[in-house]
């Protein structure tokens, strides 16, 4: 069993299954995206016990004793999470493919630095590639999210 978004789910059908493929194809949580499969782009970022990790660099079985949060689990079906709201308000997404990874990376960043400096923001999102926005709006969204979460 693996705990994903607060729910116990049956473990992967194969020991060699990547965590990214497990959440996408066995749990149907397709908000976790796969952009490079070698741990550079950050699209597949999920939270493991609240910390951002690359689900394409982990086997699903390694997540066994941890709490996995995917983008679908951040706000559930309720109102948007403040980070999601900030991304919307600041136009910090275009094609949306990198967005779940960014949002979860920012969740990890704000957990560590609730009021991040500009350098901390750049550092916090510098493990995620975005090919559409040119990042300026994402930086603004991080600042806005920090305001919203107080």
């Amino acid at each position, binding site marked *: 069993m693996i705990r994903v978004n607060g729910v116990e789910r049956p473990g992967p059908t*194969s020991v060699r299954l990547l965590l990214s493929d497990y959440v996408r194809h066995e749990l149907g949580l*397709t908000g*976790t995206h796969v952009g490079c499969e070698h741990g*550079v782009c950050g699209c597949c970022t999920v939270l493991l016990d609240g910390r951002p990790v690359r689900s394409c660099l982990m086997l699903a079985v390694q997540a066994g004793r941890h709490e996995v949060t995917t*983008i679908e689990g951040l706000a559930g079906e309720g109102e948007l999470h403040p980070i999601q709201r900030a991304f919307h308000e600041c136009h910090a997404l*275009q094609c*949306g493919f990198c967005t779940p990874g960014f949002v979860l990376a920012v969740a990890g960043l704000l957990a560590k630095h609730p009021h991040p400096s500009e350098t901390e923001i750049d550092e916090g999102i510098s493990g995620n590639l975005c090919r559409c926005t040119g990042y*300026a709006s994402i*930086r603004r969204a991080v600042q806005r999210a920090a305001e919203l979460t107080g």
Partner: protein
Amino acid sequence: MTTRWFGERVLRLEDERFLRGTGLYTDDVGESALEGCFVRSPYAHARITAIDASAAKAVPGVVAVYTAADLPFGKTDLPLLIPHPSLTHGRTQKCLAYEVVRYVGEAVAFVVAESRYVAEDAADQVLVEYEPLPVVITPETAERAEQLVHADVPGNLAAELRQESGDVEVELAKAPHNLRLRLRFERGGAHPLEARAVWARWHEREGKLTVYDSTQSPTSIRGGLAMLFGLAETSVEVIAPDVGGGFGPKIMLFYPDELLVPFAAMQLGRPVKWTEDRREHFTAVNQERGQVHEVRVGYDRDGRLLALDVDFIHDAGAYTPYGIILPIITAAQVPGPYRVPSYRVRFRALYTNATPTSPYRGAGRPHACFVMERTLDAIARDLGLERAEVRRRNLLQPGDFPHEVGVGWQDGGRVVYDSGNYPALLETTLKHLGPKPPGEHVGLGLAMYVEGTGVGPYEGAHVQVLVNGQVVASTGIPTQGQGHQTVFAQVVADELGVRPEQVAVTTGDTRRFQWGVGTFASRAAVTAGNAMAVAARNVALKARRIAAEHLEVDPEDLELADGMVRVKGAPDRGLPLAAVAILSNPLRYAFGGGAEIATPFQARPRPGPPLPEGEAPGLEATGYYSPPLGSTWAAGCHAAWVAIDPDTYRLRFLKYVVTHDCGRVINPLVLEGQIQGGVAQGIGGAFYERLAYDSDGQLRNASFMEFLMPYATEVPEVEIHHQETPSPLNPLGIKGAGEAGTIPVGAMVASAIEDALGVRITEMPLSPLKLFELSRARC
């Protein structure tokens, strides 16, 4: 007074599904599809002597392995898009190679299995024997033609095109000053973060093929599949769902997978999908940017251009599936915003043993801009003039439009600039850039560009008011992040007097709208945006005609506002748009929601049929927009203060200012996102992204570990200023903006580095190592 949404910073309507992770990208479609995996050539040029798939077929879980011999279209050349008379030796690949492979990554076999994991295991078991052949890898090597990429293409020459306006040789000889430059641009790749993917299902009983494809042109894919599989077009539906970035290379007809996935689905009677991984994307997807330009320029003592001669070679890669659009665009766009009294351009498109090329954001324009701006900088240096002053003296003036450049355009017509104010772009940019910041090794970068946008032939749109008052709109072009669901909703909302969030826009789904061309060449807003306006206007006219009968007023006295069709000056007299939709669709049965007013026994405004003569049911209309021959020409100016670290040669932007003019702006928020994102890609192309092929044709940096794209740490916040010179060519007065941000960045960065370090920049992309070498050579 009615609210106007055009021009407002409307927050995007499509955001929520992306933010919640509930978007639908092609790989998300699922439905227990079988999964495919390709066997691709590891050689850049080789003869295939044997293929043995028996071991692969024996792997448990494998359902099929296809080689060329298994395909009814196995010996057919894939289509050549956009043929051109100058493309005398066009060549396209087979769906799966069976005699010769001509680039690393060319598809050889396709394995279908119960899962991708099994398909990849089996792909390793497909045994292909190759006999390596000599490799041609750079355009310079191709030009020497000591080896041939295609045995039947002499000189590796796919195409040659010469154009001349004026008498360049005479004018060069007469010019008081002459300069020569050699300017090189290396290959790059677009790399949208979603690689490509195709999903297909064949419904036997309905005789219907459904395909999800991350393409930039679903309507073309549909037409091509119908033709190839002998199906009626009405039996094929192609959907480009959410697409994770496009930037050009996702438009092709066809990549092999776009045939093989539907083919396998029809053969196997089960849904099949293929999702590209990043490694194969590096070599299997079209690239761009390899060109070498020889420039001769003549000018007077004031720095005014007299004659320009550009002779360049274009690295077409192994095949020419996309014709010669790229060099045609470069040739057309070299003169840029400047007056060039005599201009001659020749290009030769040459085959190499590398991945084929097709447009990537900018599409030959970054090269053209680099050529012109480098030339102007060289003139400034030669005459000891300010770089801005040389530009000022050569810019076309606001009274010069329409301006014919004297060369052909990608639509088959001539290049004619429709409108603009170029001097204002330059002065606004310089004013906002301000004085040089303190510090060492700080340089000024400056570059200007024009961009032919909104190329034809046409796009269309359908707009309908549903009986609950919801408005739905659709167009054939797909979306890869440009915010079409918002900007088209703004356009429709204005015409129908509703709010944008009441308009649900669908793009790139042939089930909803089957006509159109595609999203490329900064054309979506111009073509589909204007089509939306035309369709919505027709709906508004119809709403006024129908409501007029019931309100017993003249349609001219009615307006659409606040979700009502109402009498001008008497807003209490009117009908909700939803009620007009119901009146337009007379029913025998009432379903509630107000439908009872339209049933046959209700009072009618007059005897006879319920709708006025000539009126069709449904509050809906279709509209098309086809630009008159010629494009809308956007323009802009980029300037920056750039600092180079003297130890690491790291590039830092101290201030970056863009002033751009794409006509009337629909949504500044979305537009600024396009520009900022374009600049980021331009920075990548200028300083980081280099596809490093070795002489054997192997791509040595086929991963994001070594092919470096900018992160947040490399991209500055760009200060963006809008200038609006409406286009006279379309009802909305708009021009395209998708590629603009990228075009001048290379030229601008080169200019800044030259200024900061005193070295000469003649190539793209640069890198810290390159700057180190140039600086050392100078010492």
